[in-house]
């Protein structure tokens, strides 16, 4: 077992969150905590059909309601421009015409003196529709199909031939239900105009993009818009788009000439901020008798809303997960009259891994082979799709360490053969090869005359620990105590930040922060270059190191000078430097960029008489490169695991087949796990710093969710002999 190499210092230590005290005392201000004098409130009216046109919209009663300031509909809304695409199409601006494409689409916004008055009046808006027959089923012949939506489909070797001649063949279809991101914090927008300047407090994961989007929607120079989100009450991907309600809050504020607050209701969270699509996937495997994969085909079909795109590759990961010469992966989307599909923690991967890792388990049983052994036998030492070495990969250690900690060797292979009293016990394993993703990012580091530093970037901390790990990293790069460093984020006026998405934020902002800190040290060296009194005179960056609030010579550590002294000696108030990062190019770097890897081991206990299943233990061993903070990283894996248990056992958006209405849009009906559903979770990290970015990290934000579904389903099979190929696994499937 190799452990993560840790440089001396702060990075890696499981220090407490720097924002923890603020959060537990209620001092952290979330978007809906902001108030302004003369604040007005908005409430939304949503369509009650999934397709068709609005035939009549009567707002007279709503307008006459107490406290109402305005009712905006497509009949009186000004023209709004389309937001720029972020790589994904932005939702079209709301209230621009009478077309309805999903149940729950906004048809009006009501603005009033109080939230209660706005809500009451919103009920009085009368809407009538000329409904069309909605397309709600992927089998509907009218539905539009999109093949290879993102150019990620892949093919190598001769799949057909290899399948036909394989000694062992396996094929099955797997399905997963649609899931809701369901962050605790209801998405909220507070919009404030000052002339042509617009300030927006919003639950976004990407203030730099949202600023651009809102500026374009309202035809403003980008500099006129400021997006603030110092704290976000969770998002899990839901905050990656410029949603229509944000535009409506800004429009409402401009219309009534007052600041406006709009807080989505829980039911609106189910239709207004995206969801994880359902999936239908077919996996075909061919193998030799001794368990070498010779053929792998993974095809997926997922629903998509009527307009716009969603990046949800369920099969792409299968192209590089195993060393297999003959592979086809294919994704398709089918347009339905459903609310927007969007990123939810591990989009595509969560669904795709369930299918692939279930199928691998099934193949292992066909071969009479230990499922763990089958995975090791097909381990991909190099990235088989790019035919390049991985930038880092310690998945083998993940399996080995995980098996050891979990006690995998105690497993008796026969399904139904392990019992504890009346409970059937099952062990399941799944491997995870997460995708790599990174965006450009900028940061600025500033040292002040009191010797403290502030480092800034327009990124967000959606609960993941960005404040904390970037404070640690900055402190280490500048040789300061953590107490002397502040990291600022959540403000689009700061240097342009990457999205908190794709598990790519820490690499992106970390590399930018590192560069900014290094440039700042350079700026100090420039300052003293010609200073004969400075022990650092003439030193280059490679000749110095930092620590204890000072820069010193590597060859003579006692020769150095404190930042504060340099500033004082030169009469400088503060010194700043910028840094930026751009993702490496795999071809230039000569390696395949790795995302994180993980092995998930799960024990379930099943009450066979009642079909009740309890996850008893989860052991997760993760290779995420260099771990910046053991504690926050562990929390990310545990939180992801909880999400995975939800996906595997409970979560399912139910759409009414006749109308396309989300039928369970409350937490009373859409069940997410409670504490009593969550077992002991053990998390360990293995691996070395990754070579693809300068910080050496691979993100941990999403991988925690992936693999849990398959590991649970595999464990259920081991416990009961029943193979469940659909998520969530319900009581009815097990009794």
């Amino acid at each position, binding site marked *: 077992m190799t452990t993560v190499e840790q440089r001396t210092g702060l990075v890696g230590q499981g220090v407490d969150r720097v924002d923890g005290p603020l959060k537990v005392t209620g001092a952290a201000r979330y978007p809906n905590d902001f108030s302004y004098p003369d604040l007005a409130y908005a409430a939304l009216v949503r369509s009650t059909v999934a397709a068709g046109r609005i035939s009549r919209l009567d707002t007279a009663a709503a307008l006459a309601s107490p406290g109402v300031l305005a009712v905006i509909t497509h009949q009186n809304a000004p023209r709004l421009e389309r937001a720029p695409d972020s790589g994904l199409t932005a939702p079209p601006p709301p209230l621009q015409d009478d077309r309805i494409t999903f149940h729950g689409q906004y048809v009006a916004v009501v603005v009033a003196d109080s939230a209660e008055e706005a809500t009451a009046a919103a*009920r009085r808006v009368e809407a009538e529709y000329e409904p069309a027959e909605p397309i709600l089923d992927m089998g509907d012949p009218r539905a539009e199909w999109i093949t290879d939506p993102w150019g990620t489909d892949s093919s190598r070797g001769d799949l057909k031939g290899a399948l036909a001649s394989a000694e062992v063949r396996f094929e099955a279809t797997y399905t997963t239900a649609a899931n809701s991101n369901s962050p605790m914090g209801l998405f909220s927008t507070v919009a404030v105009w000052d002339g042509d300047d617009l300030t927006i407090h919003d639950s976004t994961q990407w203030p730099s993009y949202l600023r651009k989007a809102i500026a374009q929607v309202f035809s403003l120079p980008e500099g006129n818009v400021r997006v603030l989100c110092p704290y976000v009450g969770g998002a899990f991907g839901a905050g990656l788009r410029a949603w229509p309600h944000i535009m409506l809050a800004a429009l409402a504020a401009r219309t009534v000439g007052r600041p406006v607050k709009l807080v989505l209701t829980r039911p609106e969270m189910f239709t207004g901020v995206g969801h994880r699509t359902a999936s239908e996937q077919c996996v075909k495997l061919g193998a030799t008798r001794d368990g070498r994969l010779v053929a792998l085909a993974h095809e997926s079909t997922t629903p998509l809303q009527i307009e716009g795109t969603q990046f949800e590759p369920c099969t792409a990961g299968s192209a590089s997960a195993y060393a297999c010469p003959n592979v086809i992966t294919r994704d398709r989307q089918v347009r339905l009259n459903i609310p927007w599909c969007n990123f939810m923690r591990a989009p595509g991967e969560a669904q795709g891994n369930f299918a692939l890792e279930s199928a691998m388990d099934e193949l292992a049983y066909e071969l009479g082979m230990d499922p763990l052994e089958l995975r090791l036998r097909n381990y991909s030492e190099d990235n088989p799709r790019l035919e390049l070495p991985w930038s880092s990969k310690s998945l083998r250690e993940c399996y080995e360490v995980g098996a050891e900690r979990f006690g995998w060797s105690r497993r008796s292979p026969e399904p139904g053969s392990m019992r504890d009293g009346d409970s059937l016990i099952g062990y399941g394993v799944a491997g995870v090869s997460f995708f790599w993703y990174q965006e450009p990012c900028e940061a600025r580091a500033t040292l002040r005359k009191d010797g403290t530093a502030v480092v800034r970037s327009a990124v967000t901390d959606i609960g993941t620990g960005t404040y904390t790990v970037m404070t640690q990293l900055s402190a280490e790069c500048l040789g300061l105590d953590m107490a002397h460093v502040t990291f600022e984020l959540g403000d689009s006026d700061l240097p342009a930040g990457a999205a908190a998405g794709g598990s790519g934020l820490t690499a992106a902002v970390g590399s930018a922060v590192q560069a900014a800190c290094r440039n700042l040290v350079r700026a100090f060296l420039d300052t003293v270059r010609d200073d004969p009194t400075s022990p650092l005179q003439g030193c280059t960056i490679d000749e110095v190191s930092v620590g204890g609030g000072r820069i010193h010579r590597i060859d003579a550590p006692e020769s150095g000078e404190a930042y504060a002294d340099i500033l004082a000696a030169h009469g400088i108030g503060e010194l700043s430097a910028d840094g930026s990062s751009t993702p490496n190019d795999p071809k230039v770097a000569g390696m395949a960029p790795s995302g994180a890897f993980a092995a998930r081991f799960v024990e379930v206990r099943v009450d066979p*008489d*009642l*079909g*009740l299943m*309890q996850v008893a233990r989860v052991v997760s061993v993760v290779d995420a490169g260099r771990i910046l903070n053991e504690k926050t990283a562990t929390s990310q894996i545990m939180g992801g695991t909880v999400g995975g248990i939800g996906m595997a*056992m*409970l979560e399912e958006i*139910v759409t009414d087949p006749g109308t396309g209405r989300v*039928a*369970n849009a*409350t937490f*009373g*009906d859409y*069940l997410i*796990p*409670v*504490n*009593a*559903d969550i077992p002991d979770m053990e998390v360990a990290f293995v691996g070395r710093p990754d070579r693809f970015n300068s910080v050496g990290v691979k993100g941990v934000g999403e991988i925690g969710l992936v693999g849990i579904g398959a590991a649970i389903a595999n464990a259920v099979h081991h416990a009961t002999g029943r193979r469940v190929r659909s998520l969530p696994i*319900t*009581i*009815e499937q097990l*009794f």
Partner: protein
Amino acid sequence: MDFLRPLTWAEALEMKAERPDATPIQGGTDVMVEINLDKGRPTALLDLAAVAELAEWTRDNGTVRLGAGVSYTRLIAELAGDLPGLAQASRTVGSPQIRNRGTVAGNLGAASPAGDSHPPLLATGAEVEAESVRGSRMIAITDFYRGVKRNALEPDELIRAVRIPVATGPQYFSKIGTRNAMVIAVSSFAIAFDGRRVGTGIGSAAPTPRRAPEAEAFLESALDWSGPLDADVARRFGELVRDAAAPIDDVRGTRDYRLHSLAVMARRTLTWAWEDHLRCA
């Protein structure tokens, strides 16, 4: 919407007589949810929280008189010895917050077939003490449930208390939900031994909570009270409980699963109760 806030029981009854349309609100854990979800807007709310008499319970002649305002939390803390079945059921209600507010009287007022207090109330033969300005009456629990979310209260009546016999034998409650807390029962079952009489209660498996009289009669005749439990008797009891139910398919569970699970829960709770019986005998 009018908001009525009586300070005494007498005042509450007068207000209800005057405004039979007023919706009583005790803990509010059902009423507020309905209002939030826009399921009909009451014309008036009659808030009983300030009526001090309701928040008390007394024990008299082997019966607990449980005031309509006693929360689940208090019931669990103070009455688990006297009313073990009801206390077990109370522990499965919602979350600590819900148990701090919610009451058995509210559960009866809502009369949901899935309410968790109903099976133990049925198994123990409880009575509902209903009162109006016209007087007070006792409603046998088996007469109380009148249909899905309907009960036997007259428009001017309020629940003053629930009278539940103090346990003389083992009692068990069992509930199946789709997750481990904060969940509406897919199906539930309660059993109570009182001397050599056996009481049962079925939840979430018919339009109203109900007893399984044939299963009770079968046990009373088939049980050999001194020896170990005959596995065939236990199985037959489960079947008869199952046969007493009339469940439907809904989002929480299928009819088949409800029937199956009732048979299992009946068999299991009987087994547990029997072990206690033998231990105490």
